């Protein structure tokens, strides 16, 4: 991963100008001390800013914080968890942010704790991100030594499983149980860690909140669109010359973002946007779209976790989808039948089609099954996986028929574009 240099864009808020991890001195020199806001002022600022969650769900941050605040007792019994699980294999933006700007995230975490009334403050990361864990612990020590932090920030490390970053799974793990999702309601704001009202917030979102606390909602809205104000962190990879983490205002086009990542090595054919719960979109369809929610919705896509993978016609979309689908099928928590029985059945059938070992009826079966499993898990794992599959079956419909008849194509053996980590054992 490289720190891509900015090409004439002013939208650099979260990413540092120099690729050097920022210690507390540098952080304070750049931003000054963290302002103290009363809870209502802080949450009003979030509402006015229009900030939405950057962990994939795009939910209004102010609404989320207020829901927790309203459930908190007068002596402040809430729990705040910064979610740095980043279990999305093609995403690096949260780790990148925590490595270069840990204090901005920790500021946001403290703002959240002040606003909702939390005594217990946790940052949750994943075992395989051990460098991030070390950076975080160092940053927390720095703050404690400086006495800039009046509270204990606990670091919790969970398993690197795709669904272990889902907020009910995070709550479960921080409560001392396995990192598996739960049925909602109750939602974390109603009954979260140790049954207390809990805010689970992605770390990029917290960093934006820290900037809003300092510079205000109008400043935040000065870039981006009305519905998707501000900037977003993106992980750009695939057939681009300088893959890496970029920051862009939401009114930036996909094409311009790819240019900032060095441009495409070859002719772009398709883009995977949003991560493994995201969608495949034809390059010519998405190239001139801006990355704000309205623009992406108009072509059936979402920014999701900010993952943008560019592929040329020399990539086999069927084989890429096959590998990711098999990965997702192996990532279920094993709790809900439609997901832990359905996804492997679907992935296996898709694999047979991809390798030319299925009957034509398999395509109809895939469509029916993928509709059947949606909305039937405790979490959205089956829904997300099936949106990804549906976008592949639509965009690669002709390729899919070709694979059904002839098996692997001449691009199937190319270097894999989408990473699929080995599944770790255990859920603790």
């Amino acid at each position, binding site marked *: 991963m490289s720190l891509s240099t900015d090409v004439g864009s002013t939208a650099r808020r979260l990413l540092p100008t120099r690729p050097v991890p920022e210690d507390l001195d540098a952080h304070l020199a750049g931003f000054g001390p963290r302002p103290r806001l009363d809870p209502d002022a802080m949450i009003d600022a979030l509402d006015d800013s229009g900030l*939405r*969650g*950057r*962990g*994939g*769900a*795009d*939910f209004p*941050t102010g609404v*989320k914080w207020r829901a927790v605040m309203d459930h908190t007792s007068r002596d402040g019994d809430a729990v705040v968890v910064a*979610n740095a*699980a980043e279990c999305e294999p093609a995403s690096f933006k949260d780790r990148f942010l925590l490595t270069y700007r840990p204090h901005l995230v920790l500021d946001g975490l403290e703002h959240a704790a002040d606003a909702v009334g939390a005594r217990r403050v946790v940052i949750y990361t994943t075992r395989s991100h051990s460098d991030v864990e070390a950076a975080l612990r160092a940053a927390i020590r720095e703050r404690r030594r400086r006495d800039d932090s009046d509270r204990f920030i606990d670091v919790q490390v969970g398993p690197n499983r795709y669904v272990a*970053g*889902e*907020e*009910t799974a*995070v709550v479960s793990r921080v409560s001392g149980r396995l990192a598996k*999702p*739960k*049925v*909602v*309601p*109750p*939602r974390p704001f*109603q009954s979260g860690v140790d049954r207390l009202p809990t805010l*689970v*917030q*992605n770390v990029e*979102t917290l960093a934006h909140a820290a900037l809003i606390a300092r510079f205000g909602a109008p400043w935040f809205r000065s870039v981006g669109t009305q519905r998707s104000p501000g900037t977003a962190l993106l992980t750009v990879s695939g057939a681009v010359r300088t893959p890496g983490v970029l920051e862009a205002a939401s009114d930036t086009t996909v094409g311009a973002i790819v240019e900032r990542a060095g441009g495409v090595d070859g002719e772009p054919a398709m883009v995977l946007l949003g991560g493994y*719960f995201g969608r495949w979109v034809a390059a010519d369809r998405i190239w001139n779209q801006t990355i704000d929610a309205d623009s992406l919705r108009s072509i059936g896509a979402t920014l999701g976790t900010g993952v943008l993978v560019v592929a040329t016609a020399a990539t086999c979309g069927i084989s890429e989808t096959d590998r990711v689908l098999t990965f997702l099928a192996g990532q279920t928590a094993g*709790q*809900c*039948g*439609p*997901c832990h*029985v*359905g996804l492997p*059945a679907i992935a296996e059938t898709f694999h047979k089609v991809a390798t030319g070992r299925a009957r034509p009826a398999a395509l109809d079966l895939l469509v029916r*099954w993928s509709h*059947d*499993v949606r*909305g*039937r*898990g*405790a*979490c*959205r794992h089956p829904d*997300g996986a099936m949106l990804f599959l549906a976008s592949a079956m639509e965009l690669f419909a002709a390729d899919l028929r070709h694979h059904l008849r002839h098996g692997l194509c001449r691009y199937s053996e190319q270097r894999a574009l989408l990473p699929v980590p080995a599944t770790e054992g255990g859920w603790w």
Partner: protein
Amino acid sequence: MRVRLRVDPIKCKAHGMCGELFPERIRMDDWGYPVIDSRALSDDVVEHARRAIVDCPRAALWVEPVDEPGARERPDDSD
């Protein structure tokens, strides 16, 4: 109060009893897990719904108010 039937997918272990007792609103998928019609229960089917709830060996079924704000409308993923 208008209510709809829900299944706890973690508790459900595909015994299939509910589909037998309440076929008007429950069908079984290819793996034996119930697919529940999420529309509000009308008076004529409430008794069948009640039997399905009471007889589920895993106690995995319940009814919730249709307008339950936390039900399924909101994205679950951590944001």
